[in-house]
């Protein structure tokens, strides 16, 4: 199974009976933020008193798992077990509304939730803090994990460890969390719990006898889960006597009250009316309401040290709420918690309306979609070929695809999204740097010669896990993508874990698809950023009948030029339909022509027979073709299909 997966779930309490994961229609942002019902179910309006529970009886934990390994199902069971939701048998993690969710099997963002649990005669407050599962959001994951002291490492007993499991384990490990290993789906006929346990043992140095064996679906062994969490997770540290200090680890936008922040209180306490300050921006906010998610927003009198809850504080824009930010009480500044980094775009793509008249409407949409997701960066861009549009920056390819699908669903065929690129960097001789968001930013030959010291590209460290028999083809794949192999280890008798350093540019397009096809779906993949390295970059331009088309230009590594230049020319030849004149396609780099192709003039296009009965058919066809023509973008005299703008950077097997 391929691992470009995000496992975050939006849950909402639905009229008090059903626990549904939900992705609201308000915008993409909802994919990463949750929504909830503004008015809690009857009987839950009153304030909940949680002050009787001391920090020693609080456990903040998360579940980390590979996609489909059963995280959401386990969460459902725990909620039923603690009476947070009723046991109706309907509590299934369903309703993945976004097309991208359905297609990729991802679910988007889970709700954090507070549960009460009796253990050895004591009442415990158990805060389950969910995390996005995908690497695009590894920063968000690390901040969510920073709100926990322990995590359940959930592994499918049939599938064993996958790349995402490894990535998440190391994130948790890096945060110093207690890891509570569990094997799920042990009742499946294909389950191999012994083998999976062995993998966990060898990959993470966790003793096999510590591993719980459960089936979240049937409930088998689920009663051992919370006791294990209580026993193995330390309570949150911190002091009630110190000034208030809290970590913001998640936010979402609510139309009625503005931004809602989820915070973990590290020291002190907070209540309505208090004034708090963001360490990052210095902005002061007045607290309007505090509470816990139980499972919807339930107000409490205060939030105390060790607790995890929500704060509504008159924050108007999601852009003010930075995941990882530290908040303190006004006039009592504290040292900010480590690890805060503002959102950083790793993948860029151009978005253009096919019809320039659609610009304003599209502008509105993009604004709406980014209202809830401050991690999308937006810059206006003007292309000679495509007119006015935007350059959007995303955390990663999945983030981009989710956004792209939202836009396409709304705009159907009327928008054009260019191939993704990565933020290259130019280092000038005077020591300054410049980011290359779009090929148009790339210095021309003169500037290159006179001012540029080096060109640099971003790299990632990737983890691939797959059955041994694919070792050859996986090594080949990485090498073909300019990968630098670091090591490979056997995590059991037949599965290999491969570590490889790859240029980011190599994985933003079809790397995943190739990985999947070359391993017949058995390889999983995950990656983390690994900084910039000097790299010989060039800009490849595409000329159509002698004229450069800026929207088809691409920045690439020098070694790719010949192959890519031929590829691009031949792919363009395949996608450009014959027109009433010859179309000459040339790719050039460094002032030299790399490849040339010709789309020959169309000599004949006329329906031979057209009598009475053919008229209706002919008119239907004509209107269908006219519809199709709307998808074309005319550059000079040449009509380019949508696919033409996606041919760049893609490469053949």
């Amino acid at each position: 199974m391929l691992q470009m997966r995000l496992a975050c779930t939006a849950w909402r309490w639905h009229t008090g009976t059903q626990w549904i994961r939900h992705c609201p229609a308000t915008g993409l942002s909802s994919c990463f933020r949750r929504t909830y019902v503004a008015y809690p179910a009857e009987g839950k309006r009153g304030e909940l008193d949680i002050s009787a529970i001391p920090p020693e009886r609080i456990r903040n934990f998360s579940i980390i798992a590979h996609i489909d390994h059963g995280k959401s199902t386990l969460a459902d069971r725990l909620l039923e077990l603690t009476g947070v939701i009723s046991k109706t048998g309907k509590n299934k993690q369903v309703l993945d509304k976004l097309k991208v969710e359905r297609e990729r099997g991802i679910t988007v963002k889970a709700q954090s939730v507070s549960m009460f649990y009796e253990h050895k005669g004591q009442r415990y407050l158990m805060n389950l803090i969910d995390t996005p599962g995908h690497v695009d959001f590894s920063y968000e994951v690390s901040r969510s994990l920073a709100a926990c002291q322990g995590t359940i490492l959930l592994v499918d007993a049939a599938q064993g460890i996958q790349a995402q499991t490894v990535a998440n384990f190391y994130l948790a490990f890096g945060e110093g969390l207690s890891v509570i290993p569990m094997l799920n789906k042990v009742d499946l006929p294909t389950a191999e719990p012994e083998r999976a346990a062995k993998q966990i043992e060898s990959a993470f140095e966790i003793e096999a006898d510590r591993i719980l064996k459960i089936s979240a679906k049937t409930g088998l062994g689920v009663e051992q889960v919370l006791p294990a969490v209580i026993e193995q997770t330390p309570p949150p540290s911190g002091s009630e006597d110190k000034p208030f200090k809290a970590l913001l680890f998640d936010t979402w936008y609510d139309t009625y009250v503005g931004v809602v922040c989820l915070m973990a209180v590290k020291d002190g306490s907070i209540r309505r009316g208090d004034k708090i300050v963001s360490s990052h921006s210095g902005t002061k906010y007045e607290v309007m309401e505090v509470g816990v998610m139980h499972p919807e927003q339930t107000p409490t009198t205060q939030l105390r040290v060790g607790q995890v809850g929500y704060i509504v504080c008159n924050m108007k824009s999601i852009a003010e709420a930075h995941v990882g930010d530290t908040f303190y009480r006004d006039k009592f500044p504290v040292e900010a918690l480590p690890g805060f980094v503002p959102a950083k775009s790793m993948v860029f793509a151009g978005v253009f309306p096919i019809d320039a008249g659609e610009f304003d409407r599209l502008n509105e949409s993009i604004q709406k979609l980014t209202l809830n997701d401050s991690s999308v960066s937006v810059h206006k861009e003007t292309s000679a070929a495509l007119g006015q549009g935007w350059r959007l920056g995303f955390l990663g390819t999945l983030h981009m695809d989710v956004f792209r699908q939202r836009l396409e669903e709304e705009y159907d065929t009327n928008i054009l999204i260019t191939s993704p690129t990565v933020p290259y960097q130019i280092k000038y001789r005077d020591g300054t740097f410049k980011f290359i968001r779009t090929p148009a930013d790339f210095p021309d030959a003169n500037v290159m010669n006179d001012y540029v010291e080096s060109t640099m590209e971003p790299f990632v460290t990737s983890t691939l896990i797959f059955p041994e028999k694919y070792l050859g083809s996986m090594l080949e794949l990485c090498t073909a993508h300019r990968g630098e192999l670091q090591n490979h280890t056997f995590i059991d008798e037949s599965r290999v874990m491969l570590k490889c350093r790859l240029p980011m540019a190599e994985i933003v397009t079809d790397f995943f698809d190739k990985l999947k096809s070359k391993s017949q779906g058995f390889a999983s993949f995950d990656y983390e950023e690994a900084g910039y390295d000097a790299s010989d970059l060039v800009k490849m331009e595409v000329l159509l009948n002698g004229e450069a088309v800026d929207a088809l230009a691409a920045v690439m590594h020098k070694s790719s030029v010949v192959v890519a230049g031929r590829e691009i020319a031949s792919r363009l030849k395949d996608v450009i339909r014959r027109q009433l004149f010859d179309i000459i396609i040339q790719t050039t780099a460094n002032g030299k022509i790399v490849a040339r192709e010709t789309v020959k003039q169309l000599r004949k296009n006329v329906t031979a027979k057209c009598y009475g009965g053919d008229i209706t058919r002919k008119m239907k066809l004509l209107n269908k073709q006219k519809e199709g023509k709307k998808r074309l973008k005319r550059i000079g005299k040449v009509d380019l299909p949508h696919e033409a703008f996606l041919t760049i950077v893609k490469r053949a097997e």
Partner: protein
Amino acid sequence: MAAARVPLSLYVHWPYCSFLCKFCAFSKARVPSQGVDHERITNALLKELRTCLAPHKDKELRSIYFGGGTPSLSLPRNIERIISEANKLVPLAPGAEVTLESNPTLAEVTKMRDFKLAGVNRYSIGIQTLNDDSLRKMGRLHTGAEGLAAVDRAKALFPGRVTFDMIFGFESQTLRQWQEELKTALDHADRHLSIYQLTVEPGTPLFRDQRAQRVVLPSDDVQARMYEMTVDMCLARGFRHYEVSSYASHPSAESMHNKGYWRGQQWVGIGPSAHSRFTDPTNRQRISSVRIPDTQRWAQQCERAGHGTGKEFVVSDAEAKQEAVVFGLRMLEGISDEGFMGVSGGQSLTGYLCMARVQHYIDEGHLSWHAPTACLAPTERGLQVIDTILLEIIP
């Protein structure tokens, strides 16, 4: 003097064939093993004719066309009943064209004289190709020589009123072969020819063969060359190209019935799967209708309800304008502003079309504008790629 009557055409669909050609996408069926129930089909056609022609009694019939299927498999006396019944409902105009399609197989050739006596005055023969191998491969049960013999016999009976169909672009056909074949065809031609490029229509056996790569047809460029050669050779022999696939050696030999379709005139079609386009005299709405395609179901409904109409639509002004341009520009005579305004409710061609694109194609030599008659027409070069041009000039 009475006002000129509005012209109307009649299309009569005969649903049976003695063999099924691999490329044919028309509605048809092989003759049933128990034989055709001629009486039942004819009675159903007559019933439908009465129901559907009656509202048009103030118009006049300019043409009748017996198509199919293979209408030459019907009985001449039944053809006669249909013609005379039609004439009773809507008068046949003087010089009205009455065409019957025929196969060149022997049995039908012998019926030719009887069809003439029944009132048919134009004979259209499906030769398709003179190459016996191609004929066999396409599932046709006659030879090239039989085809030519049928043409010669028809010419004797219908002098100046014979046409036949030829198709180019068969599997493995070369330019040279087509040139030879066309030369022979022109040697035998009367005053009209229909010459088509083989079109692979979805749903035909040929379509499936091509998709499965059992059949490889000449490349687009070779087919284009065949088309160009056809135009040139016909012209050299005095046959003027007047529509994409139609050639005539004299304007009077051009198919009146087919030009009716291309000029957007009204017609009523009867028989299974037949289409109609007419203006409803009661409310002036433009109607498009299609009869039930299945012969049995069509006949049952005719018997029960007096007509076998399956679907009926109102044609919007926008659709009518599109159609007028699409079909008008299939003819080298083009479309006149006057003709267009007849369907557009007064909007002129120049007001309707994307004139910047029209001008572009005029500059490129694909279209021409004849100012005195206010007529937009394709050039030979333009006609060859008219489907591409239409996409650009129609708003």
